[in-house]
């Protein structure tokens, strides 16, 4: 062989080195692409995870409020007739109530016990209104969540209006004897002297409380399909989260493969260059 000329082995070694250089470059580019994909998937994963947590908090808030509402309803329903029956017996001028009073051996003329029942009835009515407002405000806060813009079959505004009972008196006038509006109720509770409140007005107060509880019960029932919708949404989003999790895992594995392929290609390029130099020295080509 003449000095200065390359043989077949040398050409082969050069070509192999070139192939591994290209492979290394391609691998590096793929790693960059997978890294970008992974970044996007991580971003989507975090976003979805945050959304799921927020929805779970919404469902949990609904559940807590439901317990609170049912406790208010249950406690109010148990005592709904108790105090008014006492007032009927103590205050009514009807003959059969007089007979009952005789049977009970009570003759009441502005006694402390009757005043106490009246005072407590007014106070507990105020407490009930307070609980109702507090429940309504808590629901309002939940409805600020974005998910409620997506739910087409439910209007939070309508829910708030119904729960607020703004048309309660107009729509249920047949249930009241004297009271015409919420102002009449507040006036009776806050301003009127106990002695000036007649039995008819006490009956109206009893019906107002019952109507408030009924409104609370009927309105909150409308939330069942909403909660079901959110729970289904959580389920779907959790499935999506699982899919992203496995995609992330797959991308990570591919990324690692290409990192290694890049490293090995670079080393192999070096190996074949060394083998080339070795072959050149051995052939005494210089």
């Amino acid at each position, binding site marked *: 062989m003449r000095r200065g000329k390359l043989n077949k082995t040398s050409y082969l070694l050069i070509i192999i080195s070139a192939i591994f250089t290209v492979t290394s470059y391609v691998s590096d580019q793929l790693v960059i692409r997978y890294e970008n994909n992974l970044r996007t998937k991580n971003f989507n994963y975090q976003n979805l995870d945050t959304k799921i947590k927020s929805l779970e908090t919404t469902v949990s808030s609904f559940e807590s409020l439901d317990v609170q509402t049912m406790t208010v309803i*249950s406690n109010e329903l148990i005592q*709904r007739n108790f105090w*008014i*029956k006492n007032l009927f017996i103590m205050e009514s001028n009807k003959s059969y109530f007089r007979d009952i009073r005789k049977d009970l051996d009570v003759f009441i003329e502005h006694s402390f016990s009757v005043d106490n029942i009246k005072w407590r009835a007014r106070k507990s009515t105020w407490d009930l209104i307070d609980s109702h407002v507090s429940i309504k405000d808590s629901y309002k806060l939940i409805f600020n969540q974005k998910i409620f813009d997506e739910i087409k079959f439910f209007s939070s505004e309508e829910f708030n209006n119904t729960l607020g009972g703004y048309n309660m008196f107009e729509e249920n006038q047949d249930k009241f004897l004297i009271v015409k509006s919420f102002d009449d109720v507040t006036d009776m509770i806050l301003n009127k002297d106990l002695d000036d409140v007649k039995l008819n007005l006490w009956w109206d107060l009893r019906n107002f409380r019952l109507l408030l509880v009924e409104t609370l019960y009927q309105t909150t029932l409308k939330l069942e399909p909403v909660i079901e919708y959110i729970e289904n949404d959580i389920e779907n989003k959790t499935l999506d989260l699982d899919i992203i*999790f496995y995609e992330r895992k797959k991308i990570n594995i591919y990324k*690692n493969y290409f990192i290694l392929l890049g490293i*090995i290609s670079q*080393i192999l390029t070096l190996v074949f260059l060394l083998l080339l130099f070795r072959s050149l*020295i051995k052939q005494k080509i210089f």
Partner: protein
Amino acid sequence: MKILRISLLLNLFSNTKNQSKFLTYINIGLFLSIFAISAAIITFYIETKIDKIESNLAEAHIEQRSNQKIFDSFTKLQSQYKSYESSTDALVDLYEYIASTKLGEYTITVNDLYLPLIFTESEDNDWFKESMSDGLWDEIEATIAEWFGNESEEVKDFSKALKALKKSQYLFVKDNPEYFEKIFNYDSKKIVSEIRKKESINEWDDEIYKDYIEFSNLFKDMFLLLEVMRKLFDEYATSWENQISDLNKEILIASNLETKVIVFAFIFQFIVFLIIQYFEISSIKNEKGMNAKRKIK
């Protein structure tokens, strides 16, 4: 400048005195490259293994979190049941005391006291109907039996409570518009007639009272079911914790193994390199000796 450097390199290579030295350097380079390849392959193999373990670990953490969530919801539900039961019992006791008095006979009826409780308790009956119809409870019972064993206390408690629950399911199936009408009654005449009737609630033979007692027992059974399920999820939590700990150990072992295998590969390849280098130097020396003899001749 580059051309000058390459020509310098070529000059160095063309110097025959330097050639054997360069061969040694190239051999060292080859040895290091082969070691780097083998180290990379070992790292890749073990890292892939660690990746799989880490992914199992991530899955285990997700399962553990979801398990913890269920466990927490059972605990929350149990405490809600307990607090609801105790406050209701106290209230019912108080009204029952009052109902025992002469005034109470006029002012408290079963419709006042027990009906609202039955009504609110049976309000959320859809989930119960669904769970009964799709055999969810039976599936849970089978899982509990599989986990704790057929003869365990947990299975006995669960089966007993489930049997009672199935027996009482008619309470949830009952339609409640009639109850609704009775509770949300705005007619004063009906209230007055209740007062005039003077029916004591302490006679214990009223249908509504019987239903109330059934509901109270049902609550106790539900509490027992939740207790057993809470135990099951507690066991699951321990099992996941053990699995997570085992996976962490596996990662540590694989990581240590990687270092050891790389060190071993280096020593092994270095010995092979030395042997090859020894034979190559010997062969060059032999070749030089033969050439010298040829020149003398």
